[in-house]
């Protein structure tokens, strides 16, 4: 089966809405049991999570805990919750050399800008995202999300206390 960009965009927009609305417990259900959620070091987007120091290197267990943590008042950095807005653009379904989509693993590349506002300061995260989706009913689940910061450092944002 071939998936259209619209189908994939609908899914990505849904994920972004769950994050922006702080529905993190629903957000984590979008991920497969073998999922990974990664933010690699700024100088090497292709770094290996088993050898390099990442910014985020979550397996499903830690991703779940991240989602639960963000619902607590004691997740101080996000209490009260900051105001978030994801903008997603340049969505591409990546095909193999023969122009074919994978039948199970569907690689998707897109760009996103995430705004986080709190205490009268707005931080901007400019990201290039690589996801691997797998079909799930008439939608998808996420097997891998690698968020590459389009920046050479995490100054001035200073933290990634939100989900990108």
């Amino acid at each position, binding site marked *: 089966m071939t998936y259209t960009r619209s189908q994939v965009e609908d899914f990505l927009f849904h994920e972004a809405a769950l994050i922006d609305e702080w529905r993190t417990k629903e957000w984590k259900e979008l991920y497969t049991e073998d999922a990974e959620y990664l*933010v*690699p*070091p*700024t*100088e*090497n987007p292709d*770094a290996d*999570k*088993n*050898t*390099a*120091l*990442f*910014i*985020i*290197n979550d397996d499903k*267990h*830690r991703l779940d*805990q*991240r989602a*639960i*943590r963000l619902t*607590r008042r*004691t*997740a*101080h*950095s*996000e209490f009260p919750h900051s105001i978030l807005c994801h903008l997603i653009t340049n969505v591409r379904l990546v095909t193999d050399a023969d122009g074919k989509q994978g039948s199970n693993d569907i690689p998707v590349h897109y760009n996103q800008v995430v705004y986080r506002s709190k*205490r009268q*300061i707005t931080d901007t995260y400019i990201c290039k995202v690589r996801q691997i989706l797998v079909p799930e009913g008439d939608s998808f689940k996420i097997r891998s999300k690698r968020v590459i910061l389009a920046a*050479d*450092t*995490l*100054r*001035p*944002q*200073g*933290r*990634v*206390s939100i989900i990108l």
Partner: protein
Amino acid sequence: MSIPLPSGPDGYIKDDRANSEFLVPRKAFTSPEVLAAEREQIFNTCWLYAAHASEIPKANDFISRRVGGRELIISRNAEGELGAHFNTCSHRGAMVCREKMGNTKRFVCPYHGWTFDTGGVMVEQPADTGFPDDFFSKGTKNLRSVAKVDTYRDFVFITYNPNAKTLIEYLAGVTEYIDIVADQSAVGMEITEGNHEYSMRANWKLLLENSADGYHGLTTHATYFDYLQATNGAFRTDFDPATMAGKCVDLGNGHAAIEYGAPWGRPVAQWVPQWGEEGRATVDELKANLVARCGEDKATRIAEKNRNILIFPNLVINDIMALTVRTFQPVDAGYLEVNAWSLAPSEEHPDVRKFRQYNFLEFLGPAGFATPDDVEMLELCQQGYQNLPEPMWNDISKGMSQAQNGVNDELQMRAFWRQWNKLMAA
């Protein structure tokens, strides 16, 4: 330089040993004049951490980074000798090195083409005319080097102060703790790939205080402990909670450390069930090697204890669920920059390296389960100081009435502030 702080019999702090009260002026965190004095009297006089030798192992390797607010090239020349030079052309001042790290024979200033070798020696420029024959041969057009560079156990320090005492004298009692870090490898520690370069909208001294503060753990980091509780096998099964009380020591010259039992896994050699039986065999072997090299007592100390080490004025080595080297510097009174790395034995088994890098992020880093909440606390403090001049003082008295201080006391911060006060009042 006049420092706009209240001054009393103890200098700029109130160090009332009779009543066990220790106060620090909040204006020290907000005043641009205090920061200007700190640049002169602290950052321009102390030894500052610049790099780890593993980042520049070979001849002609270089790093460019800010150290104590100044732009440096830290490099090895063609003979492999370590040096540190101001990253500014001797001609008109442009930065001659624009890459973060690499290997090169020459730094060519992009403005007029003045060219320097990796030892900072001016070697050529493109013009045929306009300069006397011996103009460039006198050494006056070389890149200016910093006053002193020295290394302790592969930690590279520099000072801008030509009259500074030796590095070993400066480090005083903290060498014992640096040794415990360096001794975690039989062949040498290394900075691993990747780093955390972030920032906080807070004064630099707030991060120093926070980096070895046991007292804030249970409140600021409640969700980190929730995470550990929710993680199967995150704790050693035979852990004795009494060891968490630990100790806090003043190591001289403003350096200090806390040391305490670690309930969690430590990739140097403390296994937890989360790492599985296969991981156990690997970690047990690491421990056996450590015992063979260091003896039972020291090996157990290395493997099973956490250490948060403060090296005056702005280096932190936290040897906890992973090993981080963290340095930070003020940009202005209310904004600091942090650079942090993961340090590991260079011979580390791939499985253990994987645990290490995974472990690091469960607590540390700008997206860890703890550091973002530290950032929040520091920024709340900085914003709270907007209330000046009314509440004028911070309280750092905890433990002052006790002969011994533990992890949850504040001796380590008093050690810092007493040295800060000594240098600022000088």
